[in-house]
């Protein structure tokens, strides 16, 4: 039943956004022209398209994020059951986290974390 409500709320979000926009389309004026619909670039005519290549730094941070987020997903079940696992669970997860911390230290030393 809980996840049925998730479906219902997906629909509600659609109703909220698209219903609102539909109402706005009925109420608001709609008189597009070439200058109004031009891409905004502080009053200048835009040079080229906005779909350009961007800094590779963003990509490296995305990779790092992926590693640590998957790690967190692994740690959730461990965190729930930690009380039953006791010291053995503590040591095992400690080793797991340690390996990832080494990864972070490696990235740090390689200068990946510097923003250029």
């Amino acid at each position, binding site marked *: 039943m809980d996840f049925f409500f998730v479906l219902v709320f997906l629909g509600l*979000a*659609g109703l*909220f956004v698209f219903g*609102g926009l539909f109402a*706005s389309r009925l109420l608001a004026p709609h008189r597009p022209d070439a200058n109004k619909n031009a891409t905004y670039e502080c009053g200048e005519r835009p040079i080229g398209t906005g779909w350009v290549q961007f800094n590779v730094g963003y990509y490296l941070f*995305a990779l790092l994020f992926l590693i640590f987020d998957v790690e967190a997903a692994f740690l959730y079940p461990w965190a729930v059951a*930690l009380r039953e696992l006791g010291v053995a*669970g*503590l040591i095992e997860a400690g080793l797991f986290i340690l390996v990832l911390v080494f990864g972070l230290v490696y990235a740090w030393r390689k200068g990946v974390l510097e923003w250029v």
Partner: protein
Amino acid sequence: MSSWEVKTIAQRAAEAMPESVLAGAGYVLLAVGFAAAFMALMGMALIYAERKVAAHFQCRLGPMRVGPHGIFQTVADTIKLLFKEDIVPSQSDKLLHLFAPYLSMMATLLALLVLPMSPVVQIADMNIGVLYVTAVTGFGVLGVLLAGWSSNNKWSLLGAMRAGAQIISYEVSATMALLVVVMFSGSMQLSKIVESQAEGWWIWRAPVIGLVSFVIFLIASLAEISRTPFDLPEGESELTAGFHTEYSGLRFAMFFLAEFINMFIVAGMAATLFLGGWMPFHIGGFDTFNSVMDLLPPGAWFSLKSGLVVFLIMWFRWTFPRLRVDQLMKLEWKILLPIGFVNLFAAAASVVFGWYFFPIR
């Protein structure tokens, strides 16, 4: 000490469904109506509060004209936005441009679904609550990236890329802080986490660790919802409002509303996880003191706590200057994340060896 019986709207619907489908559907409608009304009213209230708080921090009065002390100002603004022309740039990817506000709104609404506001005011309560909130708020970044990309505008793209890098980076730290609470309460279900704080809130019951993870969670969440001092994806003075440069009228209003409700959700989650949610201020063993605290109903406790955190977030806006991109990344990867790891390990040790106040019932 009085005990609380948690009963969510989803549970009520599931119970009513076998007997009469109509009653079950009624509960579904109740949930939908509640969420829609909550979004609209809370959004307006928060925008009004933001303007008033900002005004008083700067020794101004803020909106005063529409209604007593200007309380209908945001209503007027919403109506104005409804009558504004919806301008879609001809260069943009029109389908994705339309879809981006939906993704933002969806992330916000789905997170609202599980927020426990009182034992009876909670729509659904799944057993993976904390993980679910992390997962659905992740959709928000997709909305932002999509908005920036589909606009086909250099400012938008730059703002969206900054926002993406910022949100995913700080998500790691926020998760580290969430894991600490999951460990202490031994459950991911939000109502169980609240109930596990019946003897005291995690912020003080787990000595130092609770406070550290609360601070990490607050900083990381502020960055995730791009509030000041982490509002550089939207820096109006440098990026002309970033990812929503090309959004106008009601489409812009959807982003704006989602952003403000996100602020409430962050405050509500911080209150639920670290400040006991709807649980009154209890100290284990002091039964007389606890029964006095029980006089105030749980819903009022939740409102007080989340309201306090919302005020704190607004306060930050007028206290801290905006960070630079390199400072932002340095703060996350070189300061917050190492502290988060150490804190996580300390929390694990204190759970295993029982170094916290009052046992879990």
